[in-house]
């Protein structure tokens, strides 16, 4: 096939008019500049934490900050080797507590959300209202009563106690979220499953759960984050022993009364962020789907 260059040019010349989806050059530049500016503002703190994590403590805060000044990976090696507190134990505790919160929280809220979506039972309205109400209390108000409950249950200072406390925060929100998601799955599917030979729990487990994957991913992410970065409950309810701390609590050893080890704190912070990023990466495919679903039916 031969192309006539001149004829192509003619078409271009006569087609100056902007198409519906086109932008003028000025608008394009302004738009990109604004987006780049906003991105820089969002990314800069994280970037600076990373830069600081490479510097020795003495160079972390300077009158004239430099990008690199005696930079090395020493902070990371010292944090990971346990020289500055039992970082790996804290990390393990955090992972365990966050994962347990995710699994238990999502399971409870999925079953509760399914019941709220499908069944009519006395107290349903009251249950959903109380879920909303619970979220309106500030954390600080809850610490003392929860502490008393944990002591009464003999769970004070244990990981499982803290997991249950995190579930009280995660479950109400996740239940609402999942109820909304289950509502978009037609009840006909449940009935087809029943007729095909599933028990009511079978319908939930084999049909509804696989169909609600995007919703489950969002709630799992939320439950994970609830537990991962939380400080107040963790420092109040876990035992004071160094090896039972979570990361968020443990990081406080770098901030002492008279001096702050900025370099080590930054290095540890970067390490803490990694699992959250990994979880986000795993569920991000579902996140947009999950958050957007329910907006438009079908």
């Amino acid at each position: 096939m031969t192309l006539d260059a001149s004829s192509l040019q003619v078409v271009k010349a006569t087609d100056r008019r902007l198409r519906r989806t086109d932008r003028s050059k000025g608008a394009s530049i302004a738009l990109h500049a604004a987006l780049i500016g906003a991105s820089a503002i969002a990314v800069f703190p994280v970037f600076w934490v990373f830069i600081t994590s490479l510097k020795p403590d003495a160079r972390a805060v300077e009158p004239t900050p430099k990008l690199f000044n005696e930079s090395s990976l020493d902070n990371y090696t010292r944090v990971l080797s346990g020289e500055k507190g039992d970082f790996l134990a804290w990390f393990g505790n955090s992972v365990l507590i966050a994962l347990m919160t995710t699994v238990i929280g999502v399971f409870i809220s999925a079953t509760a959300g399914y019941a709220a979506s499908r069944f009519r039972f006395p107290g349903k309205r009251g249950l959903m209202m109380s879920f909303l109400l619970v979220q309106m209390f500030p954390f600080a108000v809850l610490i003392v009563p929860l502490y008393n409950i944990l002591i009464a249950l003999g769970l004070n200072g244990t990981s499982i106690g803290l997991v249950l406390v995190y579930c009280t925060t995660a479950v109400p929100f996740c239940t609402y979220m999942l109820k909304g998601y289950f509502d978009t799955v037609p009840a006909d599917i449940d009935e087809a499953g029943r007729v095909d030979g599933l028990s009511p729990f079978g319908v939930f487990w084999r049909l509804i759960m696989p169909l609600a994957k995007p919703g489950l991913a969002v709630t799992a992410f939320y439950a994970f984050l609830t537990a991962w970065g939380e400080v107040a409950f963790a420092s109040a309810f876990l035992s004071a022993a160094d090896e039972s701390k979570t990361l968020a609590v443990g990081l406080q050893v770098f901030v002492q009364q008279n001096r702050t080890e900025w370099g080590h704190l930054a290095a540890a912070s970067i390490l803490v962020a990694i699992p959250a990023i990994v979880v986000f990466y795993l569920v991000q495919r579902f996140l947009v789907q999950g958050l957007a679903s329910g907006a438009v039916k079908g």
Partner: protein
Amino acid sequence: MAEVSYVKASRVFSGNPPVRAVDELSLEVADGEFLVLVGPSGSGKSTALRMLAGLEDIDEGAIHIGGKDVTNVPPKGRDIAMVFQSYALYPHMTVAENMGFALKLRGVAKTEIKAKVEEAAKMLDLTKYLERKPKALSGGQRQRVAMGRAIVREPSVFLMDEPLSNLDAKLRVETRANIAALQQRLGTTTIYVTHDQVEAMTMGHRVAVLKDGLLQQCDTPRALYDRPANAFVAGFIGSPAMNLKTVPITSEGAKLDGVIVPLSRDAIAAAGGLDEVTFGIRPEALGIVPSGEEGMEMTVELVEELGADALVHGAVKIGDASQRFVVRVDGRTPPTLGQHVKVAVRDHSEIHLFHPETGERLEA
């Protein structure tokens, strides 16, 4: 294979007053029979089907399948398969998985499931689509998958809840014939719910007409058309609907617009003592006659041409009120709008009389 019977089965929804969605339904369905439940929306036909499926409680009475009382048996223990109006295919499974799911739950061997699914797919012309997900199928294909899912299980009863209402008109007619043929071939007892009286008439061995949760009549399509048990069935079965008018009755016959339509002595005796009766005549039993002959004066208000014939809607004066009548005429020579025509009863054996208040048929 099994027979089905409803024994005074009722479904009552709580409320004030409680709603009797299905009211003491008693119905016997023979083994291998194709029974259609038909009625306007809100008549309780879907509820009746769902009671049989075990998806709706049976508040009073009982339901038997194959001689066994299943009133309190969960759906999975009833050996039924159901086709839903929305098809309710499992979106996360392929066509083959959808069709084989019930067998998989029963623990049937994989090779056997595969063979059965393939056989059903062949029957329904779905072989090409077995590995697709439902969302990649057209409406007609999805409908066939829903049918396939029911067939693969070889249940003792098929339940179908308006399975054709999401298809376009042409496909609906085609699928209607296919389902009837398939049922004939498999010989499985089938209960089919529809609001479309044409579907009911063309598919069912017998048709049960419901209204407000009450069974009005259950008979063969022919019998429903020829001898409707009451004015509701008369008006519901047949398209276009029967002309049903309340007219004065004398010792000679029914009085319409100065014309007296003679009635048999038995008919007049059945209406004994009544001043008025509900007079029913189908559009096809009326005809337009030359102006000189005896008949009702009708002003043509609308002509619907269907090709083979035409439906003429017009106003006839009965007493002081003007009443609408529909007449089926030859499609090639329809009257024009506004024209005054004479309409006469063509076939006197096709006159139906009903009690003006109860609507019951007056046996003649």
